[in-house]
């Protein structure tokens, strides 16, 4: 099955630097990503053309999320109480392993053999497909993008558009190879082919699995947006529906979901609203003709409480998973999502993954940014992503295993040599005599600059210092004047 992978990146590796080196050479990937991201950027701004309105909405979105986080433990308890009362079973999982066990137990109790999935990034976090397959249960993705990458044995390249790195021709070849469908690059007929296969699967599935966009505490409602109808099918056709989500997705009431929905669909795809907005609040009631007999919600922590515990890092949990930060990121656009080697790629991935996996497993992620700020500027809930990246860099270079450590894997890039260099830099720049001596030497002996300056000269010629520093020139000039 794995013989014809089109992508260049080894998705089993979390080595961002090495992955990036490979994907940067993939011209097809570069082209596909650039044109897709350009289109998303322009769709977003067309859907929110008025700057004042847009900025007011972002401020409101930020307040709604901050308010929810400020009452998080209470809201979660209220959510659980209301869902339970309405007949939805709530499960808590600290780790992805626990979450998978919960899902497996539900499946085994129903003697389930087939699972159909709507799109869920938390299920990706859990590697649920692999886990269920190991336990003899087939898990099939029904979101078109997820379906494509599952066929190609890949991981999502984007949290909203998992197969955005592939063009129609690549998908046509994939379907020809895997599904024995005559080659076409006509998007509509490719989608129709997949839909007819999936249609059958929905009717035979024992369990439907979905994510959650917002869990509403006051009314006990699981809100789910989607454009393909597969989310509604996954959550209504099979006899059991299991929703999996992170503990941060809870909001206080339905009113709070209005600005968030408005921001989510516009920031993600430039849509005023999605084709489907599902609100799930109970299993099938007596006398009703459809809907699942059982509904479960699995609430996953998986490192989120670590981010929650620090007031600055807590802002990471504002995220509503729109993907706008990816769409606007010059790094993501060039290397694609798979190069990050983590479930969540792009700017948000760089600030959330260290909590999910530990800094020791994501040591390069905070550094893989020029801090250009494009992400923070478009984030619908105003997460200060560049500031959080900088903070993670600080955690990353602290001495490891100190008391009061706020993050697992702190100091994963600690180097006493580098710390000493920065200490030297500090003295150089805060002791004028030293600075002047240094710049005097550099300006007088600048011609001796070696041609090879390691990574800098990979892309640049070696910089040549001027023959006189501004300090000297300015001093001369100002003395002449007075």
């Amino acid at each position, binding site marked *: 099955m794995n013989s014809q992978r089109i992508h260049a990146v080894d998705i089993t590796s979390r080595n961002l630097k090495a992955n990036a080196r490979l994907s940067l050479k993939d011209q097809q990937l570069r082209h596909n990503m650039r044109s897709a991201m350009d289109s998303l950027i322009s769709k977003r701004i067309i859907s929110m053309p008025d700057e004042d309105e847009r900025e007011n909405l972002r401020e409101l979105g930020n307040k709604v999320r901050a308010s929810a986080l400020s009452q998080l433990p209470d809201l979660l308890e209220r959510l659980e109480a209301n869902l339970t009362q309405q007949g939805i079973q709530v499960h808590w999982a600290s780790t992805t392993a626990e979450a998978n066990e919960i899902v497996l137990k539900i499946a085994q109790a129903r003697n389930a053999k087939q699972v159909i999935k709507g799109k869920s990034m938390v299920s990706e976090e859990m590697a649920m497909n692999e886990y269920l397959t190991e336990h003899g249960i087939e898990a099939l993705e029904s979101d078109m993008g997820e379906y494509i990458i599952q066929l190609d044995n890949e991981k999502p390249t984007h949290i909203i558009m998992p197969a955005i790195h592939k063009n129609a021709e690549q998908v046509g070849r994939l379907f020809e190879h895997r599904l024995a469908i005559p080659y076409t690059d006509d998007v509509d007929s490719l989608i129709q082919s997949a839909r007819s296969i999936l249609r059958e699967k929905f009717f035979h599935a024992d369990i439907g699995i979905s994510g959650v966009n917002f869990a509403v505490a006051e009314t006990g409602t699981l809100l789910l947006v989607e454009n393909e109808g597969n989310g509604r099918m996954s959550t209504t056709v099979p006899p059991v529906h299991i929703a999996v989500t992170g503990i941060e997705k809870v909001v206080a009431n339905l009113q709070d979901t209005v600005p968030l929905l408005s921001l989510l669909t516009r920031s993600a795809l430039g849509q005023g609203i999605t084709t489907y907005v599902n609100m799930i609040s109970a299993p099938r009631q007596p006398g009703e003709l459809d809907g699942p007999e059982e509904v479960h919600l699995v609430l996953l922590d998986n490192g989120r*409480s670590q981010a929650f515990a620090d*007031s600055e890092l807590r802002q990471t949990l504002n995220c509503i998973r729109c993907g706008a930060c990816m769409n606007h990121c010059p790094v993501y656009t060039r290397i694609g999502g798979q190069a990050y080697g983590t479930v969540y790629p792009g700017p948000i991935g760089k600030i959330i993954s260290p909590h999910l996996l530990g800094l020791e497993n994501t040591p390069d992620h905070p550094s893989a940014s020029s801090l250009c700020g494009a992400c923070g500027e478009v984030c619908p809930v105003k997460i200060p992503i560049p500031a959080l990246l900088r903070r993670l860099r600080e955690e990353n270079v602290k001495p490891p295993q100190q008391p009061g450590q706020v993050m697992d894997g702190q100091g994963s890039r600690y180097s006493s040599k580098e710390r000493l260099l*920065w200490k030297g830099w500090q003295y150089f720049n805060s002791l004028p005599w030293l600075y002047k001596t240094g710049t005097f030497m550099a300006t007088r002996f600048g011609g001796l600059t070696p041609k090879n300056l390691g990574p800098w*000269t990979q*892309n640049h010629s070696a910089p040549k*210092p001027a023959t006189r520093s501004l*300090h000297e020139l300015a001093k001369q000039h100002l003395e002449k004047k007075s």
Partner: protein
Amino acid sequence: MSNQFYNAAPQETRVAPPRKPARTYPANKPAQVYLFGTCVVDLFFPEAGMDAIYLLEREGIAVDFPQGQSCCGQPAYTSGYTDQAREVARSQLKLFANDWPVVVTSGSCAGMFREHYPDLFKDEPEMLAQVQNLAARTYELAEFLLHVCKVQLADHGAPLQVALHTSCSARREMNTHLHARALLGQLAQVERVEHDHESECCGFGGTFSVRMPDISGAMVADKTQSLLASGAQQVVSADCGCLLNINGAFEKQNNPLLGQHLASFLWQRTHVEQEPSL
């Protein structure tokens, strides 16, 4: 769920600070300013610093260049070496004791003074007051020329097409792109041409360019290509970090196009050697 979660104080949740109102500028230009030249200008583009001094002096403003100045601290700050950045910031803060405006020849360093020094000293109330005072009187050069000096530039050069590159932090923290565009717009013979993905980062990002040379290299390759494709005869920027990156890449590519600091460009276009008086 872990205990950590329940122990965290809910009131610690942060709300994004409200948007800042547009900056207001003094009605009259001051008699005296400080110039903060920045470390990159000091060593690699000193002529840009001198041209900034000439431009300011032409406006009748006396310029003081404190000799103790070095770096704003940005490289250490963005690399996560916060303590080292703070100590360098502390040494720089001492240099601007008088209440004169501080004009900076690089948008990102001006942004460091205005946006990030308050963060560095958030736990030192006494320093914080001093930092906020500095932030309030710090201007990027183009901003200062346009809004405080209200310059009217007379162009003496030949017709020329230029492309303007603005550093990301300068754009986002200081609106430098708008100020630089307005200044270039005053030059009658200069046409500013757009380049593809103009607002995208050039890939410099301080230590990012050496920590992630592959990604940074791909970014600067795209940037130099789009600058070339714009047809501009000259590249202008108000940030020397970007210029170091873009010019270094142009040179490596053996490309004749080079970027110039906005101060030097403006001075060369508008300066007329005075006739020696009889």
